[in-house]
Protein backbone atom coordinates (compact mmCIF):
# COMPACT_ATOMS: atom_id res chain seq x y z
CA UNK A 1 0.00 0.00 0.00
CA UNK A 2 1.14 3.51 -0.76
CA UNK A 3 0.61 4.66 2.81
CA UNK A 4 2.96 2.31 4.59
CA UNK A 5 6.07 3.34 2.75
CA UNK A 6 8.18 6.08 4.16
CA UNK A 7 10.14 8.26 1.82
CA UNK A 8 11.37 11.72 1.03
CA UNK A 9 9.86 14.50 3.16
CA UNK A 10 7.60 12.07 4.97
CA UNK A 11 7.87 14.17 8.12
CA UNK A 12 5.45 16.61 6.48
CA UNK A 13 4.19 15.00 3.28
CA UNK A 14 1.91 12.01 3.61
CA UNK A 15 1.35 11.16 -0.01
CA UNK A 16 1.30 12.39 -3.60
CA UNK A 17 -1.36 11.63 -6.14
CA UNK A 18 -2.05 12.41 -9.80
CA UNK A 19 -5.42 11.88 -11.40
CA UNK A 20 -6.22 11.82 -15.12
CA UNK A 21 -9.75 11.98 -16.46
CA UNK A 22 -10.31 10.39 -19.87
CA UNK A 23 -13.28 9.71 -22.13
CA UNK A 24 -13.52 6.93 -24.65
CA UNK A 25 -14.19 8.22 -28.14
CA UNK A 26 -17.58 7.44 -29.62
CA UNK A 27 -19.44 7.18 -26.32
CA UNK A 28 -21.66 9.58 -24.43
CA UNK A 29 -20.52 10.42 -20.92
CA UNK A 30 -21.37 7.92 -18.15
CA UNK A 31 -24.16 9.91 -16.50
CA UNK A 32 -26.39 9.52 -19.56
CA UNK A 33 -25.45 5.97 -20.54
CA UNK A 34 -27.67 2.98 -19.79
CA UNK A 35 -26.30 -0.02 -17.93
CA UNK A 36 -25.65 -2.00 -21.11
CA UNK A 37 -23.55 0.83 -22.54
CA UNK A 38 -21.78 1.26 -19.22
CA UNK A 39 -20.94 -2.41 -19.34
CA UNK A 40 -19.47 -1.95 -22.83
CA UNK A 41 -17.13 0.66 -21.39
CA UNK A 42 -15.94 -1.78 -18.74
CA UNK A 43 -15.39 -4.48 -21.37
CA UNK A 44 -13.34 -2.09 -23.50
CA UNK A 45 -11.11 -1.22 -20.56
CA UNK A 46 -10.86 -4.83 -19.46
CA UNK A 47 -9.53 -5.78 -22.90
CA UNK A 48 -7.01 -2.94 -22.89
CA UNK A 49 -5.26 -3.64 -19.59
CA UNK A 50 -2.27 -5.88 -19.05
CA UNK A 51 -3.71 -8.74 -16.99
CA UNK A 52 -0.32 -9.70 -15.56
CA UNK A 53 -0.11 -6.40 -13.77
CA UNK A 54 -3.64 -5.12 -13.32
CA UNK A 55 -6.86 -6.65 -12.10
CA UNK A 56 -10.39 -5.47 -12.78
CA UNK A 57 -13.07 -5.65 -10.09
CA UNK A 58 -16.76 -5.01 -10.66
CA UNK A 59 -18.12 -2.65 -8.03
CA UNK A 60 -21.24 -4.79 -7.59
CA UNK A 61 -19.02 -7.68 -6.49
CA UNK A 62 -17.43 -5.63 -3.71
CA UNK A 63 -19.36 -5.50 -0.43
CA UNK A 64 -20.39 -2.18 1.10
CA UNK A 65 -17.90 -2.21 3.97
CA UNK A 66 -14.98 -2.86 1.63
CA UNK A 67 -16.15 -0.13 -0.75
CA UNK A 68 -16.26 2.32 2.13
CA UNK A 69 -12.86 1.16 3.30
CA UNK A 70 -11.46 1.93 -0.16
CA UNK A 71 -12.95 5.39 0.18
CA UNK A 72 -11.30 5.84 3.59
CA UNK A 73 -8.00 4.84 2.03
CA UNK A 74 -8.61 7.58 -0.59
CA UNK A 75 -8.41 5.01 -3.38
CA UNK A 76 -11.91 5.71 -4.68
CA UNK A 77 -14.13 8.79 -4.39
CA UNK A 78 -17.08 8.93 -2.07
CA UNK A 79 -19.36 9.44 -5.08
CA UNK A 80 -18.18 6.12 -6.48
CA UNK A 81 -19.33 4.11 -3.45
CA UNK A 82 -22.48 2.19 -4.35
CA UNK A 83 -22.03 2.64 -8.11
CA UNK A 84 -23.23 -0.73 -9.38
CA UNK A 85 -22.28 0.06 -12.96
CA UNK A 86 -18.72 0.90 -12.05
CA UNK A 87 -15.50 -1.07 -11.93
CA UNK A 88 -12.04 -0.64 -10.46
CA UNK A 89 -8.74 -1.42 -12.12
CA UNK A 90 -5.79 -1.73 -9.75
CA UNK A 91 -2.29 -3.12 -9.55
CA UNK A 92 -1.08 -5.26 -6.65
CA UNK A 93 0.19 -2.49 -4.37
CA UNK A 94 -2.58 -0.03 -5.32
CA UNK A 95 -0.16 2.56 -6.68
CA UNK A 96 -2.40 2.63 -9.77
CA UNK A 97 -6.14 2.65 -9.20
CA UNK A 98 -8.58 3.55 -11.96
CA UNK A 99 -12.31 4.10 -11.52
CA UNK A 100 -14.40 3.15 -14.54
CA UNK A 101 -17.76 4.89 -15.04
CA UNK A 102 -17.38 7.39 -12.25
CA UNK A 103 -18.05 10.92 -13.55
CA UNK A 104 -15.93 10.03 -16.57
CA UNK A 105 -15.35 6.75 -18.37
CA UNK A 106 -11.91 6.66 -16.80
CA UNK A 107 -10.49 8.32 -13.73
CA UNK A 108 -6.95 7.05 -13.49
CA UNK A 109 -4.98 7.68 -10.30
CA UNK A 110 -1.37 7.12 -9.32
CA UNK A 111 -0.36 7.17 -5.65
CA UNK A 112 3.02 7.38 -3.95
CA UNK A 113 3.93 7.93 -0.36
CA UNK A 114 5.81 11.13 0.51
CA UNK A 115 6.63 13.91 -1.93
CA UNK A 116 6.88 11.94 -5.14
CA UNK A 117 4.95 13.71 -7.87
CA UNK A 118 7.44 12.78 -10.61
CA UNK A 119 7.11 9.09 -9.89
CA UNK A 120 3.32 9.38 -9.94
CA UNK A 121 3.52 11.16 -13.28
CA UNK A 122 5.77 8.53 -14.83
CA UNK A 123 3.56 5.72 -13.65
CA UNK A 124 0.28 7.28 -14.63
CA UNK A 125 1.61 8.18 -18.10
CA UNK A 126 2.85 4.67 -18.59
CA UNK A 127 -0.49 3.12 -17.65
CA UNK A 128 -2.47 5.65 -19.65
CA UNK A 129 -0.25 5.41 -22.74
CA UNK A 130 -0.49 1.62 -22.64
CA UNK A 131 -4.27 1.50 -22.65
CA UNK A 132 -4.35 4.37 -25.15
CA UNK A 133 -2.84 1.95 -27.67
CA UNK A 134 -6.08 -0.02 -27.56
CA UNK A 135 -8.61 2.65 -26.57
CA UNK A 136 -8.96 5.99 -28.33
CA UNK A 137 -9.58 8.92 -25.99
CA UNK A 138 -11.88 11.80 -26.94
CA UNK A 139 -9.66 14.79 -27.54
CA UNK A 140 -9.64 18.05 -29.48
CA UNK A 141 -6.90 20.46 -30.45
CA UNK A 142 -8.90 23.30 -29.02
CA UNK A 143 -9.80 21.93 -25.60
CA UNK A 144 -7.51 18.94 -25.01
CA UNK A 145 -9.12 15.92 -23.34
CA UNK A 146 -12.90 16.11 -23.61
CA UNK A 147 -14.49 14.93 -20.40
CA UNK A 148 -17.89 15.24 -18.82
CA UNK A 149 -17.15 18.16 -16.50
CA UNK A 150 -15.91 21.17 -18.50
CA UNK A 151 -14.10 22.66 -15.51
CA UNK A 152 -11.46 19.94 -15.79
CA UNK A 153 -10.79 19.86 -19.53
CA UNK A 154 -7.45 20.55 -21.16
CA UNK A 155 -4.86 18.45 -19.43
CA UNK A 156 -7.67 16.90 -17.36
CA UNK A 157 -4.99 16.37 -14.74
CA UNK A 158 -5.20 16.94 -11.00
CA UNK A 159 -2.01 16.84 -8.98
CA UNK A 160 -2.55 16.56 -5.22
CA UNK A 161 -0.24 16.37 -2.26
CA UNK A 162 -1.45 15.44 1.20
CA UNK A 163 0.32 17.31 3.97
CA UNK A 164 0.42 17.01 7.75
CA UNK A 165 0.59 20.57 9.09
CA UNK A 166 0.09 20.48 12.86
CA UNK A 167 2.59 23.19 13.77
CA UNK A 168 1.44 25.77 11.22
CA UNK A 169 -2.07 25.01 12.31
CA UNK A 170 -1.29 25.42 16.03
CA UNK A 171 0.42 28.72 15.26
CA UNK A 172 -2.60 29.83 13.19
CA UNK A 173 -0.44 30.50 10.16
CA UNK A 174 -2.31 28.35 7.68
CA UNK A 175 -4.84 30.84 6.36
CA UNK A 176 -2.19 33.22 5.17
CA UNK A 177 -0.33 30.47 3.36
CA UNK A 178 -3.48 29.13 1.77
CA UNK A 179 -4.48 32.57 0.53
CA UNK A 180 -1.17 32.85 -1.25
CA UNK A 181 -1.54 29.40 -2.75
CA UNK A 182 -5.02 30.24 -4.03
CA UNK A 183 -3.68 33.30 -5.77
CA UNK A 184 -1.58 31.13 -8.06
CA UNK A 185 -4.36 28.68 -8.74
CA UNK A 186 -3.62 26.10 -6.07
CA UNK A 187 -6.48 24.95 -3.88
CA UNK A 188 -6.25 23.68 -0.32
CA UNK A 189 -8.68 21.47 1.46
CA UNK A 190 -8.83 20.01 4.94
CA UNK A 191 -8.99 16.25 4.73
CA UNK A 192 -11.42 15.81 7.59
CA UNK A 193 -13.43 18.94 6.89
CA UNK A 194 -12.70 22.59 7.15
CA UNK A 195 -12.17 22.94 10.88
CA UNK A 196 -8.54 22.01 11.30
CA UNK A 197 -8.31 22.06 15.09
CA UNK A 198 -10.12 18.90 15.88
CA UNK A 199 -9.31 16.86 12.87
CA UNK A 200 -5.82 15.63 12.33
CA UNK A 201 -4.38 18.67 10.58
CA UNK A 202 -4.16 16.92 7.25
CA UNK A 203 -4.55 19.07 4.16
CA UNK A 204 -4.68 18.43 0.47
CA UNK A 205 -2.99 20.82 -1.94
CA UNK A 206 -3.94 20.58 -5.60
CA UNK A 207 -3.98 22.49 -8.86
CA UNK A 208 -7.20 24.23 -9.74
CA UNK A 209 -6.59 25.00 -13.40
CA UNK A 210 -6.34 22.40 -16.15
CA UNK A 211 -6.84 24.32 -19.39
CA UNK A 212 -4.09 26.17 -21.22
CA UNK A 213 -1.42 24.96 -18.81
CA UNK A 214 1.03 22.21 -19.67
CA UNK A 215 1.42 19.19 -17.43
CA UNK A 216 4.92 20.38 -16.62
CA UNK A 217 3.73 23.79 -15.50
CA UNK A 218 0.96 22.32 -13.35
CA UNK A 219 3.45 20.00 -11.65
CA UNK A 220 5.94 22.82 -11.24
CA UNK A 221 3.38 25.07 -9.56
CA UNK A 222 2.21 22.43 -7.13
CA UNK A 223 5.81 21.52 -6.28
CA UNK A 224 6.62 25.15 -5.68
CA UNK A 225 3.80 25.65 -3.22
CA UNK A 226 4.34 22.32 -1.46
CA UNK A 227 8.08 22.92 -1.09
CA UNK A 228 7.52 26.26 0.55
CA UNK A 229 4.82 24.89 2.86
CA UNK A 230 7.14 22.04 3.93
CA UNK A 231 9.81 24.55 4.85
CA UNK A 232 7.38 26.71 6.80
CA UNK A 233 5.97 23.72 8.67
CA UNK A 234 9.47 22.58 9.68
CA UNK A 235 10.31 26.05 10.91
CA UNK A 236 7.05 26.22 12.86
CA UNK A 237 7.73 22.82 14.47
CA UNK A 238 11.17 23.95 15.56
CA UNK A 239 9.81 27.20 16.95
CA UNK A 240 7.10 25.39 18.92
CA UNK A 241 9.50 22.82 20.34
CA UNK A 242 11.96 25.52 21.36
CA UNK A 243 9.35 27.67 23.02
CA UNK A 244 8.86 25.50 26.09
CA UNK A 245 7.56 22.19 27.28
CA UNK A 246 3.94 22.56 26.09
CA UNK A 247 4.22 20.80 22.73
CA UNK A 248 6.28 17.95 24.09
CA UNK A 249 3.70 17.56 26.85
CA UNK A 250 0.83 17.46 24.37
CA UNK A 251 2.63 14.82 22.31
CA UNK A 252 3.34 12.54 25.27
CA UNK A 253 -0.15 12.95 26.72
CA UNK A 254 -1.64 11.96 23.36
CA UNK A 255 0.66 8.95 23.18
CA UNK A 256 -0.35 8.02 26.72
CA UNK A 257 -4.07 8.15 25.99
CA UNK A 258 -3.74 6.10 22.81
CA UNK A 259 -1.73 3.45 24.68
CA UNK A 260 -4.27 3.21 27.49
CA UNK A 261 -7.75 4.16 26.29
CA UNK A 262 -10.44 1.49 26.56
CA UNK A 263 -12.85 3.17 24.17
CA UNK A 264 -12.14 5.87 21.59
CA UNK A 265 -14.04 7.37 18.68
CA UNK A 266 -12.54 8.07 15.29
CA UNK A 267 -12.25 11.85 15.68
CA UNK A 268 -10.41 11.66 18.98
CA UNK A 269 -8.10 8.95 17.71
CA UNK A 270 -7.24 10.96 14.59
CA UNK A 271 -6.56 14.07 16.66
CA UNK A 272 -4.27 12.21 19.07
CA UNK A 273 -2.52 10.30 16.29
CA UNK A 274 -1.86 13.63 14.61
CA UNK A 275 -0.04 14.79 17.76
CA UNK A 276 1.89 11.52 17.94
CA UNK A 277 2.79 11.77 14.25
CA UNK A 278 4.23 15.20 14.99
CA UNK A 279 6.16 13.66 17.89
CA UNK A 280 7.59 10.87 15.76
CA UNK A 281 8.61 13.11 12.88
CA UNK A 282 10.38 15.57 15.20
CA UNK A 283 12.11 12.73 17.11
CA UNK A 284 10.36 13.60 20.35
CA UNK A 285 9.05 10.03 20.29
CA UNK A 286 11.71 7.57 19.24
CA UNK A 287 10.20 4.12 19.90
CA UNK A 288 7.68 4.38 17.09
CA UNK A 289 8.02 4.57 13.31
CA UNK A 290 6.30 6.98 10.97
CA UNK A 291 4.94 4.22 8.74
CA UNK A 292 3.26 2.62 11.73
CA UNK A 293 1.48 5.89 12.56
CA UNK A 294 0.56 6.46 8.95
CA UNK A 295 -0.95 2.99 8.68
CA UNK A 296 -2.78 3.41 11.98
CA UNK A 297 -4.36 6.68 10.86
CA UNK A 298 -5.97 4.83 7.97
CA UNK A 299 -6.68 1.52 9.69
CA UNK A 300 -8.74 3.00 12.52
CA UNK A 301 -11.32 4.47 10.14
CA UNK A 302 -14.66 2.73 10.75
CA UNK A 303 -14.89 0.56 7.64
CA UNK A 304 -11.19 -0.13 7.26
CA UNK A 305 -11.13 -1.26 10.90
CA UNK A 306 -13.92 -3.74 10.13
CA UNK A 307 -12.08 -5.15 7.11
CA UNK A 308 -8.89 -5.54 9.13
CA UNK A 309 -10.49 -7.20 12.15
CA UNK A 310 -12.78 -9.14 9.80
CA UNK A 311 -15.64 -8.60 12.24
CA UNK A 312 -19.02 -6.93 12.27
CA UNK A 313 -19.91 -4.66 15.18
CA UNK A 314 -22.09 -1.66 16.06
CA UNK A 315 -20.84 1.85 16.73
CA UNK A 316 -20.49 1.50 20.49
CA UNK A 317 -18.52 -1.68 20.09
CA UNK A 318 -16.54 -0.02 17.31
CA UNK A 319 -14.97 2.45 19.76
CA UNK A 320 -13.94 -0.40 22.07
CA UNK A 321 -12.49 -2.38 19.16
CA UNK A 322 -10.65 0.69 17.93
CA UNK A 323 -9.08 1.30 21.35
CA UNK A 324 -8.08 -2.36 21.58
CA UNK A 325 -6.56 -2.32 18.12
CA UNK A 326 -4.55 0.84 18.81
CA UNK A 327 -3.26 -0.50 22.14
CA UNK A 328 -2.12 -3.69 20.49
CA UNK A 329 -0.35 -1.80 17.70
CA UNK A 330 1.39 0.61 20.06
CA UNK A 331 2.86 -1.95 22.45
Amino acid at each position, binding site marked *: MWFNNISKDSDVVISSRIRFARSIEG*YKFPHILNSKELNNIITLVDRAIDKDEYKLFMMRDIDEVTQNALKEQHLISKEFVGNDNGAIVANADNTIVAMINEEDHLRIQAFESGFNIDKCYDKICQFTDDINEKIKFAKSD*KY*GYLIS*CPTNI*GSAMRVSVMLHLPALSKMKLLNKLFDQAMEIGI*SVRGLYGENSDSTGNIFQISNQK*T*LGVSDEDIIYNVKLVVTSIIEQERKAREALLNSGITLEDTIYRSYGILKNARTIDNDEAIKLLSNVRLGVSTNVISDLSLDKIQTLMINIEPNTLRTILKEEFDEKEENIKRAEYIRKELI
Partner: protein
Amino acid sequence: MKCQSCGKKEATVKYYENINGIKKELHFCMDCASKLGFAEFSDIFSPMFLPISSYDLEDNIKCKTCGYTLEDYSRTGLLGCPDCYDTFGDSLDDIFYKIHGKNRHIKMPDKLKKQSRSMSDEEAKKYKIKELKNKIKDLIDEERYEEAAKVRDEIKKLER
Protein backbone atom coordinates in the same frame (compact mmCIF):
# COMPACT_ATOMS: atom_id res chain seq x y z
CA MET B 1 -10.55 35.93 1.50
CA LYS B 2 -13.17 35.34 4.19
CA CYS B 3 -16.33 33.37 3.59
CA GLN B 4 -19.14 35.63 2.36
CA SER B 5 -21.71 33.75 4.37
CA CYS B 6 -20.28 33.41 7.88
CA GLY B 7 -17.53 35.99 7.48
CA LYS B 8 -15.30 33.95 9.78
CA LYS B 9 -13.70 31.06 7.99
CA GLU B 10 -11.49 31.21 4.92
CA ALA B 11 -13.36 30.87 1.65
CA THR B 12 -12.22 27.86 -0.32
CA VAL B 13 -15.19 27.35 -2.58
CA LYS B 14 -16.14 29.56 -5.46
CA TYR B 15 -19.73 29.76 -6.57
CA TYR B 16 -20.85 31.50 -9.70
CA GLU B 17 -24.28 32.96 -9.70
CA ASN B 18 -26.21 34.39 -12.56
CA ILE B 19 -29.29 36.39 -11.74
CA ASN B 20 -31.02 37.98 -14.73
CA GLY B 21 -27.81 38.21 -16.65
CA ILE B 22 -25.86 39.80 -13.80
CA LYS B 23 -22.96 37.56 -12.96
CA LYS B 24 -21.68 37.33 -9.46
CA GLU B 25 -18.82 35.39 -8.01
CA LEU B 26 -19.33 34.29 -4.41
CA HIS B 27 -16.79 32.80 -2.05
CA PHE B 28 -17.70 30.42 0.75
CA CYS B 29 -16.02 28.20 3.26
CA MET B 30 -16.71 24.52 2.76
CA ASP B 31 -19.07 24.35 5.75
CA CYS B 32 -21.28 27.15 4.53
CA ALA B 33 -21.19 25.89 0.95
CA SER B 34 -22.55 22.55 2.02
CA LYS B 35 -25.03 24.12 4.44
CA LEU B 36 -26.34 26.36 1.69
CA GLY B 37 -26.69 23.28 -0.45
CA PHE B 38 -24.26 24.14 -3.19
CA ALA B 39 -23.78 20.53 -4.23
CA GLU B 40 -20.80 18.42 -3.38
CA PHE B 41 -17.53 20.18 -2.93
CA SER B 42 -15.69 17.51 -1.07
CA ASP B 43 -14.14 15.96 -4.13
CA ILE B 44 -11.40 17.84 -5.89
CA PHE B 45 -12.89 17.02 -9.26
CA SER B 46 -16.34 18.25 -8.39
CA PRO B 47 -17.81 20.78 -10.79
CA MET B 48 -17.85 24.43 -9.95
CA PHE B 49 -21.04 26.19 -10.81
CA LEU B 50 -20.59 28.17 -13.95
CA PRO B 51 -22.08 31.31 -15.32
CA ILE B 52 -24.11 30.78 -18.43
CA SER B 53 -25.69 33.94 -19.70
CA SER B 54 -29.45 33.83 -20.03
CA TYR B 55 -28.90 34.97 -23.60
CA ASP B 56 -27.11 31.72 -24.39
CA LEU B 57 -29.75 29.66 -22.65
CA GLU B 58 -32.47 31.16 -24.83
CA ASP B 59 -30.77 29.86 -27.95
CA ASN B 60 -31.93 26.36 -27.06
CA ILE B 61 -29.31 24.59 -29.14
CA LYS B 62 -29.30 20.80 -28.84
CA CYS B 63 -26.26 18.56 -29.24
CA LYS B 64 -26.91 16.36 -32.28
CA THR B 65 -25.18 13.36 -30.77
CA CYS B 66 -26.59 13.25 -27.26
CA GLY B 67 -29.48 15.71 -27.21
CA TYR B 68 -27.99 17.78 -24.41
CA THR B 69 -28.82 21.49 -24.10
CA LEU B 70 -27.04 24.27 -22.23
CA GLU B 71 -29.86 24.14 -19.75
CA ASP B 72 -29.03 20.49 -19.02
CA TYR B 73 -25.48 21.60 -18.51
CA SER B 74 -26.31 24.40 -16.12
CA ARG B 75 -28.47 21.97 -14.16
CA THR B 76 -25.89 19.17 -13.84
CA GLY B 77 -22.55 20.90 -14.35
CA LEU B 78 -21.78 18.15 -16.86
CA LEU B 79 -21.91 17.85 -20.62
CA GLY B 80 -23.40 14.85 -22.41
CA CYS B 81 -20.74 13.73 -24.87
CA PRO B 82 -17.49 14.87 -26.53
CA ASP B 83 -19.46 16.47 -29.40
CA CYS B 84 -21.09 18.87 -26.92
CA TYR B 85 -17.79 20.74 -26.89
CA ASP B 86 -18.29 21.57 -30.58
CA THR B 87 -21.97 22.30 -30.22
CA PHE B 88 -21.56 24.72 -27.33
CA GLY B 89 -18.06 25.94 -28.14
CA ASP B 90 -18.96 29.63 -28.20
CA SER B 91 -20.60 29.66 -24.79
CA LEU B 92 -17.93 27.41 -23.33
CA ASP B 93 -15.10 29.65 -24.52
CA ASP B 94 -16.40 32.46 -22.32
CA ILE B 95 -16.82 30.15 -19.36
CA PHE B 96 -13.37 28.65 -19.73
CA TYR B 97 -11.84 32.05 -19.89
CA LYS B 98 -13.42 32.83 -16.54
CA ILE B 99 -12.32 29.64 -14.82
CA HIS B 100 -8.93 29.00 -16.32
CA GLY B 101 -7.96 32.45 -17.52
CA LYS B 102 -7.47 30.71 -20.86
CA ASN B 103 -9.67 28.89 -23.28
CA ARG B 104 -7.26 26.94 -25.42
CA HIS B 105 -5.43 23.75 -24.65
CA ILE B 106 -1.65 23.77 -24.96
CA LYS B 107 -0.96 21.42 -27.79
CA MET B 108 1.63 18.86 -26.95
CA PRO B 109 1.90 15.93 -29.35
CA ASP B 110 1.99 12.60 -27.52
CA LYS B 111 5.41 11.81 -28.87
CA LEU B 112 6.87 15.03 -27.56
CA LYS B 113 5.12 14.53 -24.27
CA LYS B 114 6.97 11.27 -23.79
CA GLN B 115 10.24 12.87 -24.79
CA SER B 116 9.77 15.88 -22.58
CA ARG B 117 10.04 13.66 -19.55
CA SER B 118 13.65 13.03 -20.53
CA MET B 119 14.26 16.36 -22.26
CA SER B 120 17.30 18.41 -21.40
CA ASP B 121 16.77 21.98 -20.23
CA GLU B 122 17.94 23.34 -23.56
CA GLU B 123 15.57 21.12 -25.51
CA ALA B 124 12.72 21.97 -23.19
CA LYS B 125 13.40 25.66 -23.75
CA LYS B 126 13.37 25.25 -27.51
CA TYR B 127 10.14 23.35 -27.30
CA LYS B 128 8.58 25.97 -25.08
CA ILE B 129 9.55 28.72 -27.53
CA LYS B 130 7.98 26.82 -30.39
CA GLU B 131 4.85 26.35 -28.35
CA LEU B 132 4.66 30.05 -27.49
CA LYS B 133 5.09 31.04 -31.14
CA ASN B 134 2.09 28.89 -32.03
CA LYS B 135 0.18 30.56 -29.26
CA ILE B 136 0.93 34.00 -30.67
CA LYS B 137 -0.50 32.93 -34.01
CA ASP B 138 -3.71 31.77 -32.33
CA LEU B 139 -3.98 34.97 -30.33
CA ILE B 140 -3.49 37.17 -33.39
CA ASP B 141 -6.10 35.13 -35.26
CA GLU B 142 -8.48 35.87 -32.44
CA GLU B 143 -7.43 39.54 -32.42
CA ARG B 144 -6.24 39.33 -28.82
CA TYR B 145 -3.27 41.59 -29.50
CA GLU B 146 -2.52 42.61 -25.95
CA GLU B 147 -2.08 39.01 -24.85
CA ALA B 148 -0.04 38.28 -27.96
CA ALA B 149 2.34 41.06 -27.01
CA LYS B 150 2.77 39.54 -23.56
CA VAL B 151 3.61 36.16 -25.05
CA ARG B 152 6.13 37.82 -27.36
CA ASP B 153 7.86 39.30 -24.32
CA GLU B 154 7.92 35.85 -22.77
CA ILE B 155 9.67 34.45 -25.84
CA LYS B 156 12.22 37.25 -25.78
CA LYS B 157 13.03 36.39 -22.18
CA LEU B 158 13.56 32.73 -23.04
CA GLU B 159 15.74 33.50 -26.07
CA ARG B 160 18.10 35.66 -24.07
